[in-house]
């Protein structure tokens, strides 16, 4: 089967899945919905494997779509390693997420709709991945945004998810507007949307084969930078970068497995993917802006993650922060490292989210981490899975995150070095601090959620906590040395008995977060096959990974103790919020960015909303639209009304004029005629004598006239 047929068949299955699951959502049994969806997904994974076999070198497939004479937009499929790998990645993660969902949402009456949305999402996400030109990418890009809207608002009857979905979609729309303008600009410059042609033409610019089409007093370089930054706007929204990152924490209102798939592993990474696709035409300045925004976001979000209490919010901020890493990586030109981090992050973050989902499910929808704890025995498998993924996120050797994060850090450092440091140094420094924070907050979450607390937490002692840590160490030891150990077999059997749908999904994700999936050597990323495929980064600054590791470990240890303290304080002082320091408040509220938007930007478009009012009908007549509408009804429509009134006035005058002048004249004439007739009538009275007198008088008159005049 040709690559094209594989893809179309695969996409067709997802479409079919969506149509069946959505069309017959009221009739499908919940079990069947899950199975159908899983079967389609398994097929998809197989298809993607055969695609990997099939595609050996980069090529583009063009299927005629839109033809406007000079402007031809085909349905392009760009097949290269990036494509086939991402194609596989999305579906494999989707598979485990769907598997997880079969239990997580088993009791939801609308489960068929949920799977339908997931199928549509996978379809659109694969569309983004195979897209061979910018228009097509935008096409599917919008669709994944739409799917995200549907899934965040899956429980639409509750107001929080409904609000969150609206917010996500609208903020993404703002970014998409930038992306759209960027696409137009690229098309203006290069006269094509196709990625391969773009790359060739860009290469042709330096050799003089191709000339960029510029306008105004702008130089080609400036316009390229503008185009790069505009397209980056799309990524800023979709990948939740500053200043549009506010939608992602709210997006956690959606079902947790969907959050794992869409708002952690795949869709949010689409921005990174977009930038990777257009990276050949990104100018140096655009790259710098991108790197700065990425690293800045990364540190902002990591800081906020430290202070969150909601288990999913921590992960959401963590996702923003890690996306910042990838974005910064693209900015510094390390596309391969970025995509590598995208991949490792996809697995370990999906693992973390699924673990969180398992925990939430276990605790009957409790999401406050301060009220968790003591789960390490209750949910043993999830605990291990979570620990591996968390270690990967924290960047501990032996786990994939170590390799990818250090690839990024070293690239950022190399970038700064190549530009003789100065202000370029800010990028690696920000990323470095952010990695240290990452280690801190994930340790905090680990302690809060899983580690044992004593029955009476107020009297909890360090000793117990340390013994908890011992337990962790021992468990790891057991797990890792299970093969050599004679007793290990029993343990494995015990372990296997605990495996359910949740555990399998979490374990799969965590296994994929181990180093050997990506590299023979756990300590240096230069062996990573991934990097080899997607481009080499120099790794001479070997001191960086170990410095980072050292500081991270220190921050983890600090986190371990500080978090214990935090938990204790929570129990001692239940209204700890009041005594919060401003540092904590800023972190918890994510720098009041959301607050600012909600209170200062939103009212411009909606007027100040009075939330206590049940029907906010009158209140949204304010703001800019209210002013415009007032102007419209008062002035523009007013002019019409004034014109109408003026016309009425003039016609009133003309009516009067007609009555007074014309009518009176006509009436006068007729009156005259009447009166003269009246007199004339008298002449014909029928009296012979009168006729005779008249006749004689006339004859006399004629005689007189004749005598004197003629």
């Amino acid at each position, binding site marked *: 089967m040709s690559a094209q047929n594989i893809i179309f068949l695969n996409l067709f299955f997802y479409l079919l899945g969506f149509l069946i699951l959505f069309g017959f959502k009221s009739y499908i049994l919940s079990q069947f919905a899950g199975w159908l969806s899983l079967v389609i997904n398994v097929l998809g994974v197989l298809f993607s494997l055969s695609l990997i076999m099939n595609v050996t070198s980069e090529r583009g497939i063009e299927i*005629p*779509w*839109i*033809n*406007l*004479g*000079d*402007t031809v937009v085909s349905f392009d499929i760009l097949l290269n390693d990036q494509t086939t790998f991402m194609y596989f990645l999305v579906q494999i993660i989707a598979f485990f997420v769907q598997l997880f969902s079969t239990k997580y949402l088993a009791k939801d009456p609308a489960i068929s709709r949920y799977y339908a949305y997931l199928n549509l999402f996978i379809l659109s996400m694969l569309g983004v991945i195979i897209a061979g030109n910018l*228009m097509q990418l*935008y*096409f*599917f890009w*919008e*669709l994944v945004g*739409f799917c995200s809207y549907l899934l965040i*608002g899956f429980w*639409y*009857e*509750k*107001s929080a998810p*409904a*609000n969150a*979905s*609206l917010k996500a*979609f*609208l903020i993404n*729309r*703002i970014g*998409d*507007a930038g992306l*759209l*303008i960027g696409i*137009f*600009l690229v*098309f*203006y410059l290069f006269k094509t949307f196709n990625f391969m042609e773009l790359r060739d033409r860009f290469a042709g610019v330096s050799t003089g084969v191709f000339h960029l089409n510029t*306008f*105004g007093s702008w130089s080609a370089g400036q316009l390229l930078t503008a185009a790069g930054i505009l397209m980056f706007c799309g990524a800023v929204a979709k990948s939740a970068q500053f200043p549009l990152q506010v939608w992602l924490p709210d997006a956690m209102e959606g079902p947790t497995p969907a959050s794992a798939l869409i708002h952690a592993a795949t869709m949010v990474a689409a921005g990174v993917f977009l930038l990777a696709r257009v990276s050949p035409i990104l100018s140096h300045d655009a790259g710098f802006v991108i790197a700065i925004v990425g690293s800045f976001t990364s540190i902002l979000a990591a800081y906020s993650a430290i202070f969150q209490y909601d288990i999913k919010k921590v992960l959401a901020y963590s996702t923003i922060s890690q996306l910042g890493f990838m974005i910064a990586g693209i900015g510094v030109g390390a596309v391969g490292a970025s995509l590598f981090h995208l991949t490792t992050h996809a697995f370990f973050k999906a693992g973390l989210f699924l673990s969180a989902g398992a925990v939430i499910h276990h605790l009957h929808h409790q999401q406050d981490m301060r009220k968790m704890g003591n789960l390490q025995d209750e949910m043993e498998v999830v605990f291990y899975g979570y620990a591996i993924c968390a270690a990967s996120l924290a960047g501990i050797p032996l786990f994939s995150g170590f390799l990818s994060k250090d690839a990024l850090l070293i690239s950022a450092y190399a970038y700064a070095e190549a530009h003789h440091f100065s202000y370029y140094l800010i990028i690696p420094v920000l990323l470095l601090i952010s990695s240290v924070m990452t280690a801190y907050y994930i340790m905090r979450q680990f302690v809060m959620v899983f580690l044992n607390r004593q029955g009476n937490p107020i009297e909890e002692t360090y000793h117990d906590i340390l013994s908890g840590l011992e337990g962790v160490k021992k468990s790891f030891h057991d797990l890792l040395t299970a093969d050599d150990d004679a007793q290990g077999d029993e343990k494995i059997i015990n372990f296997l008995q605990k495996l359910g749908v949740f555990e399998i999904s979490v374990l799969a994700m965590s296994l994929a977060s181990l180093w050997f999936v990506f590299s023979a050597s756990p300590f240096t990323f230069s062996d990573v096959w991934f990097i080899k495929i997607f481009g080499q980064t120099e790794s001479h600054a070997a001191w960086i990974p170990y410095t980072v590791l050292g500081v991270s470990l220190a921050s983890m240890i600090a986190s371990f103790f500080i978090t214990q303290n935090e938990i204790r304080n929570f129990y001692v002082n239940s209204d700890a919020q009041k005594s919060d320091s401003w540092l904590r408040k800023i972190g918890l509220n994510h720098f009041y960015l959301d607050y600012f938007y909600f209170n200062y930007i939103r009212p411009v*478009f*909606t007027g100040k909303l009075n939330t206590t009012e049940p*029907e*906010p*009908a009158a209140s*949204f*007549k304010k*703001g*800019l*639209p*209210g002013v*415009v*509408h007032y102007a*419209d009804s008062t002035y*523009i*429509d007013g*002019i*019409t009304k004034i014109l*109408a009134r003026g016309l009425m006035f003039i016609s009133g005058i003309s009516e009067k004029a007609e009555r007074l002048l014309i009518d009176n004249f006509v009436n006068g004439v007729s009156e005259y005629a009447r009166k003269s007739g009246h007199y004339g009538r008298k002449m014909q009275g029928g009296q012979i004598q009168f006729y005779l007198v008249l006749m004689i008088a006339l004859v006399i008159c004629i005689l007189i006239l004749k005598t004197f005049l003629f």
Partner: protein
Amino acid sequence: MNSGLLTSLIFLPLVGAGIILLLPDVYKASFKWINLICNVLNLINALTLYGSFNKTEPSYQFLEHYEWIRLDIGKSGVISIDYVLGLDGINLPMVILSAIILLIGGISSFSIVRRPKAYYSLFLLLCSSVMGCFVALDLFLFFLFFEFMLLPMYFLIGIWGGENREYASLKFIIYTLVGSVLILIVMIAVGMSYTDIFFSKEYGKTVHTFDFRQLKDTTNIIKNSFLSIDSPWKLMGIPARELMFVLLFIGFGIKLPMVPFHTWLPDAHVEAPTAISVILAGVLLKIGGYGLIRIGYGFFPDIAPDFTVWVAGAGVLSVIYGALNALAQTDLKKLIAYSSVSHMGFVLLGISALNAEGINGAVYQMFSHGILSAMLFLCAGVIYDQTHNREIANYRGLAKKMPFFTVAVSVAFFGSLGLPTLSGFIGEFFSLLGAFQSDLMPKWMPVLGVLGIVLSAVYLLWTFQKMFFGEYYISEKLEKDKIVDLDRREMLMLTVLGVLAFLFGIFPNLIFDISNQTVQEFLTRP
């Protein structure tokens, strides 16, 4: 090819109207079916035309040409007014759109119970004049149909409309008449200044023609006439040809509608019955865009590029202004009406670009808006028919009670806000792309136009959220406290339109293949 198909498009509804008028009131139950049959036949007719249309031929096809009026005016020559009908890539999409929307309007009219005889005969009269307007290739004939459209529309709004119907219908007719007067002036000027060279030789006299095929060729202008390229005629310092273009721009702009001549639209829409709103938004507005392309840009190719900034500016203003106004509405139908203003702004933007992307995009946008706005008004009608109230704030959480309706509304809303796979995306994308590629206007104009896409998402999704999400609730003030989902008739109409929205969103070449050749020729002619 002269098959009479175009004539039948115009006269079939007239025959239907005649039958309805002749039938006694006893048979009034059959009127809606007669109306429906006429519209179905017209749709079949339009699809036949689509099927046999030669996509590689840029000029007019299916021509029907009959002499109509030959008026010898002595020394000045002969006035020749012909019955010319034909189709090319620009009006064929409009004819298909009209056939679809008029049929949908016919189905939607089933709920009309008052005075069916008058209603359906007027409705068919409207069908006939709409079709005539799109296929006429003679300025006089075009104008005749253009004017004739107002009569049934006036009564349809004025008799079967809502509470404030007299005001709305009067406003509608006065506004549109003002536009017509402007177009009439142009028609007279054009009639004075253009000649048919071939026939002039045959007659031995100057033949003043109104035939589009002659008028679009500037070599047919009589030397030293009022509208000759170097005409000395000026009014207030504006050369005659420019003035004529401005008159057409405003004349068709009123119909489009373009800010600031749009205020008739919300009133007319709010008061009109659902079926008439559907036709008004779906078809009638398109005549403005079609006329501007065909007549404004068609007859004055030398003037049009100079006015790009004005046309595009009006387009951008409509987009933003319409969207902001829509955001301020509390009445669902008014919101949709203003969204029409906003979306038709893209048409102006696309036309003004004067390149293949822009004009094709504008034609596409008109087509797509026809389908989507029809859907939107039908959706508003579904709610209004049940509760006789259109206040957005009176409804909440409808998704639970009306699942099918929710799907239909979401297709209409997301289509309107330009979600890919729905037709709105293609139209907006290409209109904006064309505008951005055009060097005739500054780049900030299309950039602001893109802002309109963001705003459309704001007002549509916000409304969607308020009405459909959350706990189910409808205001106690309403006549009815229970709401039911779509009935079969509504389901049929919305499904058809929804499928079309997807069809044209995924296969844009269905329209582009038709329009492109004509647009190319339109752009490259001298």
